[in-house]
């Protein structure tokens, strides 16, 4: 039967199930297909730290939310219109987010006594009336999948593992998605007979949705109009790895990554380990300290040294960071922030390492800090961090977070000619060589690598005499060097573009940084659509700040600083600029909801 086709501007869909139900895979297949269909999109994978928490429990629920549209969007959406729930625990943990009247596709086979108990439910939500406000589409996923794959001789367990593709097939029909990319992917990824089983499950799900009158209508989200060019879907960690690879190309330096596995940064190590054909060395060290130490050693030897980690690892690297500051060697330190303190919320997002990045070293040890704002922006942030590190000869801290590291969006792939070379020249002239001689503009010292005849010299953590680099305990020299190292960071200001206020100037100024860009920009847009006078600045460089930041803050009627911590940036801005900034802080391990930020803006505008 032909169902009416409704054109939608955007859709938010969320897949939820057990950690073992393949929800991340299902979500990323929907994402890739949607990207290939030309929609703009933003994703939010949300999963527990445990690899396989007890099946059927709320602790084991894994989710993947996708927002796709025919216009420019910045967030994965506050609340889904469509929820696909594989079991009672997943349903109960997510149903509060589903919009009233939203579509709920639910695997009814799991709503039996035993599973309800695991989910800590005393009544069956399918029967107790609690789902009355939604359009419930009950489906017996395992039984239907079994029917489609009966002649393949699969075990019950293996059949059950295909059911996510059945559900995916249903949603593909519902939103007029092309099944071809996923079918192709299944065939390349799975061995027989599992490839055939998954293909059949997907196709059966599609046919089931088309044949039965489960849905009253079918939807289409036309492609977004994006600038011309080549696109791919990309996560922040992928973009960051590619940015580092590109920086190696731009600087002409071999890339060296020293890393110790840690959530949510490990994927950067995985991606870069595949680029051996580019001469990329990935060193999986024995611990976080060895990872940065080897990175500094490689930088001493003339490599583009990078170490990637998350909060707990960055804390361990503190002493070595001080050495990198002292020896003025260029390295890039990536902190993919997660919820803290301590082990905290390893798979959840937070922006609570800002003060750690700015000040988390003993002694006066300032470091440049840059933060990426979206998954795709991790690429540009990485190239920028590497450029500044090698130009100014110092370590640079690059902040991302779990949200943009694992989230994805369509990304316009740069043409190679757009990538400006940033060649690095090693010192080779012995005449007049001094290891701490200064470039008059950047204050950078020469990079003279071991193996260069006539430039033998010693560096280390003891205070240096400026120029010669000899060990010096002279009081005046120490103060001179402390001020000089701070001045080096300040001079980067010349490379930091001035801020341009988005929206209204001189009104309420919303300030954000890092991975919250999407939520804050959307909230500002919404507020302005309601007629409120609001401006927005989003900080990329946090040390040094853009030169005009102070003027913009002091010129605003009110300043609202939104961040996923206890107000770390707000504190810095208040201290630095004596501005009466209002802090809007949230620490729930989740990105901001646009509606919450909007409400805050409305309150301040009233």
């Amino acid at each position, binding site marked *: 039967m032909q169902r009416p086709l409704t054109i939608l501007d955007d859709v938010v869909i969320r897949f939820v199930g057990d950690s073992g139900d393949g929800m991340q895979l299902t979500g990323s297949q929907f994402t890739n297909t949607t990207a290939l269909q030309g929609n703009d999109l933003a994703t939010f994978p949300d999963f527990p730290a445990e690899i396989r928490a007890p099946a059927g429990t709320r602790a084991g629920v894994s989710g993947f939310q996708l927002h796709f549209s025919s216009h420019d969007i910045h967030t994965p959406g506050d609340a889904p219109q469509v929820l696909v729930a594989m079991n009672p625990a997943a349903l109960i943990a997510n149903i509060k987010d589903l919009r009233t009247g939203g579509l709920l596709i639910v695997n009814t086979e799991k709503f039996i006594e035993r599973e309800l108990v695991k989910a800590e439910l005393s009544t069956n939500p399918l029967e107790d009336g609690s789902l009355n406000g939604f359009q419930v589409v009950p489906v017996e996923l395992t039984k239907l999948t079994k029917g489609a794959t009966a002649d393949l001789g699969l075990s019950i367990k293996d059949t059950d593992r295909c059911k996510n593709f059945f559900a995916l097939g249903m949603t593909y029909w519902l939103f007029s998605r092309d099944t071809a990319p996923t079918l192709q992917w299944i065939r390349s990824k799975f061995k027989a007979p599992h490839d055939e089983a998954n293909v059949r499950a997907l196709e059966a799900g599609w046919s089931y949705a088309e044949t039965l009158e489960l849905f009253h209508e079918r939807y289409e989200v036309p492609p977004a109009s994006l600038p011309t060019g080549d696109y791919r879907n*990309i996560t922040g960690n992928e973009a960051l790895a590619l940015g580092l690879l590109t920086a190696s190309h731009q600087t002409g330096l071999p890339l060296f990554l020293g890393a110790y596995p840690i959530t949510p940064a490990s994927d950067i190590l995985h991606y870069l380990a595949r680029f051996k*054909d580019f001469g990329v060395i990935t*060193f999986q060290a024995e*611990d976080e300290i*060895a990872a940065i130490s080897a990175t500094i050693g490689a930088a*001493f*030897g003339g490599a583009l040294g990078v170490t990637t980690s998350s909060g707990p690892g960055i804390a361990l690297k503190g002493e070595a960071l001080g050495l990198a500051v002292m020896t003025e060697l260029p390295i890039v330190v990536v902190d993919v922030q997660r919820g803290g303190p301590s082990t905290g919320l390893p798979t959840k997002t937070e922006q609570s390492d800002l003060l750690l990045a700015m000040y988390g070293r003993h002694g006066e040890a300032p470091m440049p800090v840059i933060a990426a704002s979206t998954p795709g922006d991790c690429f540009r942030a990485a190239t920028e961090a590497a450029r500044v590190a090698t130009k100014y000869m110092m370590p640079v801290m690059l902040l991302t977070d779990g949200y943009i590291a694992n989230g994805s969006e369509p990304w316009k792939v740069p043409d190679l000619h757009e990538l400006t070379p940033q060649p690095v020249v090693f010192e080779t002239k012995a005449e007049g060589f001094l290891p701490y001689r200064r470039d008059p503009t950047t204050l950078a010292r020469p990079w003279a690598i071991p193996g260069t005849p006539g430039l*033998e010299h010693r*560096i280390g*953590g003891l205070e240096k005499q400026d120029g010669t680099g000899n060990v010096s305990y002279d009081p005046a020299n120490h103060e001179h060097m402390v001020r000089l190292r701070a001045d080096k960071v300040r001079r980067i200001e010349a490379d930091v573009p001035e801020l341009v206020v988005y929206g209204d100037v001189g009104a309420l100024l919303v300030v954000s940084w890092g991975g919250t860009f999407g939520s804050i920009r959307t909230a500002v847009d919404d507020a302005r659509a309601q007629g409120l006078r609001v401006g927005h600045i989003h900080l990329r460089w946090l040390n040094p700040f853009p030169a005009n930041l102070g003027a913009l803050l002091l010129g605003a009627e009110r300043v609202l600083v939104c961040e996923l911590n206890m107000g770390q940036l707000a504190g810095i801005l208040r201290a630095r600029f004596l501005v009466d900034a209002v802090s809007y802080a949230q620490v729930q391990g989740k990105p901001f909801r646009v509606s919450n930020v909007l409400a805050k803006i409305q309150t301040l505008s009233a």
Partner: protein
Amino acid sequence: MSQFEDPSTPALSKRDLMSDQTIRWCPGCGDYSILSQVQTVFAELGIPKERFAVVSGIGCSSRFPYYMNTYGFHTIHGRAPAFATGLKLANPELSVWQITGDGDALSIGGNHFIHVLRRNVDIQLLLFNNRIYGLTKGQYSPTSEEGKKTKSTPMGSVDHPFEPCALALGAEATFVARTVDVFTTEQRDVLRAANDHRGTSFVEIWQNCNIFNDGAFADITDKKARAEKVIFVEHGQPLLFGTPEARKGLRLNARLALEVMDVNDANLSEVLVHDETNPVLGMLLSRMKPTMPVAMGVIHRVSRAIYEEGVHAQLKLAASKPGAGDLRKALLGSSSWTVAR
């Protein structure tokens, strides 16, 4: 590194290896002798001066790089093996020497110490063992004997010490040697052997701290006692020591332990022959009790794949494949689409 020897390299003198910095070790410190032997040996190796990189951690011994007129890196406490590994990976052509002490290598840096040995990075790792913390003014170290009274152990230490050579063997070291600061000739032989070995060459150098642990090794450095207290081991040679008048040797008893025997022409064949490729013998020689002589020289030496060579071999193999190093392709990834006008 014999493979880096270049006949066209101008011969170096020991003086060429001396930096212009004033040496700030205490007068009478055993480190002076080691510095002198290292400078002498470096000058002989046929390696251009700029190819040497001396990397250290923190402690008295770790000031070493400042006194060598080569490339040098005085890093942070305990982490020198990791810095050396990164440097060697970035430039495998360098001759990298790590200088460390018993606290730096075995206490704060114990983790990095075992991992550099396991990986078999081609560096030389010289551990100056004085069985005390010198730079922090006299606390016991992980090699201090039980019961040692120091500032931090006024009633005597209750810690059991490491035996560094045995620890190195346990960490899969491919080269383990021991020498003493004042045994200058033997020390230079060991340093040359360490240089020639391909892989991590671990050299424990017993070193007197005349301020905080003076005479720690006096019983073996004493010229008169030396013959009876020290056994210089050599691969393929019987394990003999003692004096021409009182020849002694080592044999394996029924409990698989080493024991001292009096040697004469008739029982010479009973003396164990040193096999530097046998880690079990290496362990026995490393851990001889105080009633036994101390083993000096190359205790263990085997050939095993070198870490950085394995890493670079993979890079080379990957780079030889068709389409290797195509940045545009890497950026596009496996799934991309084009938005046309």
